[in-house]
């Protein structure tokens, strides 16, 4: 799909040649991937930007690969064509690399750095590659890679479950997503339980600062 350029924050002013933004989420079941994608989608709709998502539910409750596809703008299919992701949100290093089939050389990648070793590795399957090698390979293939220690940052905040919101903040920090940070905050206020709201706000801000400075 035609690309949205970084820094275009005016939701109604994408122009004819910049009609969609494709965000591909990849990780492991139980990491809050669908929740994270839904927050962007809700914020988009609140801003008058079209949003469609595709999720796969079912067998992988925990431990299996999970993907979620989000498309903002004027599109019909909720699935991102091969090589057409503008932004990849990787919640686990190997899963981030696995999603390169959706990437092109202009794609921006945000990835958690902490691995979750699949049980197949312990059972004698393919060894888990070194995280530095995975990151180096990502850097060789796409326009920019933001390596985010999201789980560690969430632990620092005191609520490991907000790692997904750290990554969300990091995505906002890149300026690629044509929404205001305040709209994301408003969406969090409407969807997150009150007692966890402060931790979510901090996670969003910490992630945002990390990539904005980078």
């Amino acid at each position, binding site marked *: *799909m035609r690309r949205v350029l970084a820094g275009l924050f005016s939701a109604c002013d994408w122009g004819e040649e910049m009609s969609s933004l494709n965000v591909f989420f990849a990780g*492991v*079941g139980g990491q809050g991937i669908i929740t994270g994608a*839904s927050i962007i*989608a809700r914020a988009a*709709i609140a801003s008058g930007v*079209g*949003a*469609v*998502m*595709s*999720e*796969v*539910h*079912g*067998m*992988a*409750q*925990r*431990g*299996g*690969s999970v993907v979620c596809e989000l498309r903002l703008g004027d*599109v*019909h*299919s*909720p*699935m991102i*064509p*091969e*090589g*057409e992701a503008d932004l990849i949100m990787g919640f686990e290093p*190997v*899963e981030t*690399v*696995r999603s*390169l*089939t959706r*990437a*092109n*050389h*202009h*794609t921006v990648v945000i990835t958690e750095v902490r691995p*979750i*070793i*699949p*049980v*197949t*590795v*312990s*059972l004698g*399957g*393919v*060894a*888990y*590659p070194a995280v530095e090698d*995975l990151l180096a*390979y990502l850097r060789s*293939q*796409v326009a920019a890679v933001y390596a985010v220690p999201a789980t560690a940052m969430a632990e620092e905040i005191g609520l*490991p479950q907000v790692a997904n919101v750290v990554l969300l903040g990091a995505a906002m920090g890149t300026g690629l997503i044509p929404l205001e940070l305040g709209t994301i905050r408003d969406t969090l206020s409407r969807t997150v339980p009150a007692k966890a709201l402060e931790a979510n706000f901090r996670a969003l801000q910490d992630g945002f600062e990390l990539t904005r400075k980078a």
Partner: protein
Amino acid sequence: MKYQALVDGKAGDHELLLGNEAAVRGALEAGIGVGASYPGTPSSEIGDVFSVVAKALGVYFEYSANEKVALEVAAASAASGVRSFTFMKHVGLNVASDSFMTTAYVGTRAGFVVLSADDPSTHSSQNEQDNRYYARLANVPMLEPSSPQETKDYMVEAYNISEKLELPVLFRTTTRVAHMRGDVVFGDRRPVVRRGVFEKDPARFVPVPANSSKMHVKLLGKLGEARHLSETSSLNRVVDVGVGGRVGIVTVGSTFNYVVDALVELGLSARVFKIGFSYPLPLDRIREFAAGVDELLVVEELEPLMENDIKADFLSHGTRTPVCGKEELLVPRVNELNVDVVAKALANHLGVPLHVPASGKAQPWSSPLPSRPPVLCPGCPHRGSYLAVRRAIRELGIPEPVFASDIGCYTLGMAAPFSAADYLLSMGSSVGTAGGFDVATDQRVFSFIGDSTFFHAGLSALASAIHNKHRFVLTVLDNRTTAMTGHQPNPSMLMDAVGDPAPAISIEAVAKAMGVPFVKVINPYRVAEATEAYKEAAQVDGVAVIVSRQVCSLLLDRAKRAKGIWQTFQVDRSVCTGCLTCVHDVACPAIFVSEGKAEINQELCDGCGVCSQVCSVHAIGVKK
């Protein structure tokens, strides 16, 4: 309350909804009084929402023991004048089909909608059958939405059509519509009519032979009316992509989304006939449409159903416009479609270059990445059951046992190291097929069925096995829920679909009452005891039933966290000998190998303790 917006939402409100959530809002806007289902992905979230909202709106909702019962509850309600809704996954309609076929004969009084959520690409199913055949088989009208908004809107229309024709309406979605999330604008909600009166009319409702042939004639008449409704329906409409398109494309459901995006991507203009009322097809309008284009392409997922209808119609009417379908366009008959597949087919057929990202695609990692298939969760009680049965078989030296499996999370026992699923057909098939293996081979047979699946289709199969003197060990993996579809209740539980108290049926009492000679309840977290039980069961000359009871670890973990009684296990590296028995026998996602010794991921461990029981040197203990 979760889903409050679905209850309170007013006409004009916007909400980001999953297709399945939109189906509920549509049913509520249609004023349904009764809903009944058996959970099955990709339809499961529909029931999850009804479980939460039904009582607040005065709507009756139940999880029936299986899809056939659910359909019967809804059909009788609709015959009594109450708008009714039943929904299921595609293979669920196979179970319900015996009654479904005849609901077309007897018809309905109030609106009656049967939703089938199909699963092209078998994301969570045993096959990818195309349930659009059922509309043709039963002679009932069918609607197919493309998006959450249409799912909501078409539901309302489905009830109107059902009442107009006094027929059930088949409402067919697919995974990519059911699990698509998008903006939905609400309409008004019709008041709920919860109770009606059943007015007797045997000539209409009792299909004995004297009545049924007349009913069939009447049904075919209604199908003619349905065709007329389809011809005039706004659900069938032409969408122009670009200007001056000379190519016509007929498409339906989620494929419409791919066709439009593919045309935009390729920079092509075309006239798209979007079908929403898909059986009977509006063939007169399609013929008129074809007259205005150079050629007609039919793009549809799975079977060439619209294509065959259109080709036959054009042939009989002498319509000259060429029709291209599956074979001409090289659109596969397997798996779901997507923008890439459709764009490739269109580019190839129309002779335009395929769009590629200006910068070139990224190259995948050159060597294989570690795979991450779905696995039994940390703490999953099925792990203990499989571990015990494997140990018992090893200790007894049983050669080549056959494992007859069933539909549930436990089918994942197929993977190493358990390799405990050798044959699988459908819900309940573990019991019938176990008997078959016993009758036809000298191999020992072990079959596995879940608690919900046992009540779904295991009961009559068990009766049959006992009466016919089959010999096998049947394990009912009783995790106190219907886990795989998202933890819905079942008849062995003390709570019904809307959270009210309900009588629980004891699985072991049922088995005993049926005359099973060996019935034992085990706790799969106690590996040694469970292994002994299996060794005993394997000696029984007949059906032995083991009820392996331990609540699903996802539910148990939630309860433990809420009560603050969380514990995890850890490996004492000074004691661990690196034999890795825990890794290879237990295969828990929380256990991994670090520098030759076992290590436990503290974020994943749920404290079930099964691994500590297989460690011969007691290196695994509760983390202090």
